[in-house]
């Protein structure tokens, strides 16, 4: 079970994720996207889900039973090579439905003071 004390809290990321052309190209190649100039719309999941995993595991959640329920991205401007993105994560809610634990996490990605993208992930821990 997730420690309920973390619900409503925001955890600022400690380390910036350096967006390289290599990582954009690798992601594009993996999904078959032919345009490598900017990051594809779902690229930031590689940053935010990794942060969420570390945070939620540390707070007692069984990551091995997690499935992704839903996902939303708001992209304020395209992400490009050279961005250094800090991810802050807010545990917006945690509840139990039919024995499954459902956790909603908001992730905000800043490049310096600029909010570049926000995303919301609903993660379901199967009973």
């Amino acid at each position: 079970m997730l420690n309920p004390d973390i619900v409503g809290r925001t955890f600022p990321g400690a380390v910036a994720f350096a967006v390289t052309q290599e990582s954009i190209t690798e992601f594009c190649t993996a999904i078959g996207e032919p345009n490598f100039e900017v990051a594809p719309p779902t690229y930031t999941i590689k940053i935010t889900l990794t942060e969420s995993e570390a945070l939620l595991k540390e707070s007692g959640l069984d990551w091995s039973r997690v499935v992704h329920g839903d996902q939303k991205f708001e992209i304020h401007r395209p992400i490009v090579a050279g961005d250094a993105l800090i991810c802050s994560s807010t545990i917006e809610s945690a509840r139990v439905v039919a024995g499954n634990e459902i956790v909603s996490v908001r992730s905000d990605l800043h490049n310096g003071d600029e909010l570049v993208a926000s995303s919301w992930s609903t993660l379901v821990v199967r009973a």
Partner: protein
Amino acid sequence: MSRYAVGQELAPTTYVINRALLIGYANASGDQNPIHQDEAFAKSVGLENVIAHGMFTMALAGRYVSALQGSAAVKEFSARFVKPVVVPADTDVELMVSGKVLEVTERTAKIEISAYCKDVKVLGMAKAVIALS
């Protein structure tokens, strides 16, 4: 005049999902959960077989959205993962993605996205907002 009109159906595109692509996606995204690669492990946790990362399916639907006005034009993109995409060994699973225009403003279009494997709807409530140039 916008090239989009409310109610307009956008032509479908078919994408392939197979085991090799799931390994490539695991490496590019960092999501190395064995349920997306290891059949014995997937079955041991009660799954029918290896399943695709929900985010891989969403990324393919994202390719469909990017193909409309470019990746740089995508302002919002959301989806619910309603059914897993089961990926047996040595099989190309086809994902069919299509779109329908829900709203058009001077600067944006809101598109409803459908994603099916055979007759199974795999993404629910999938929508994107794209900037119009």
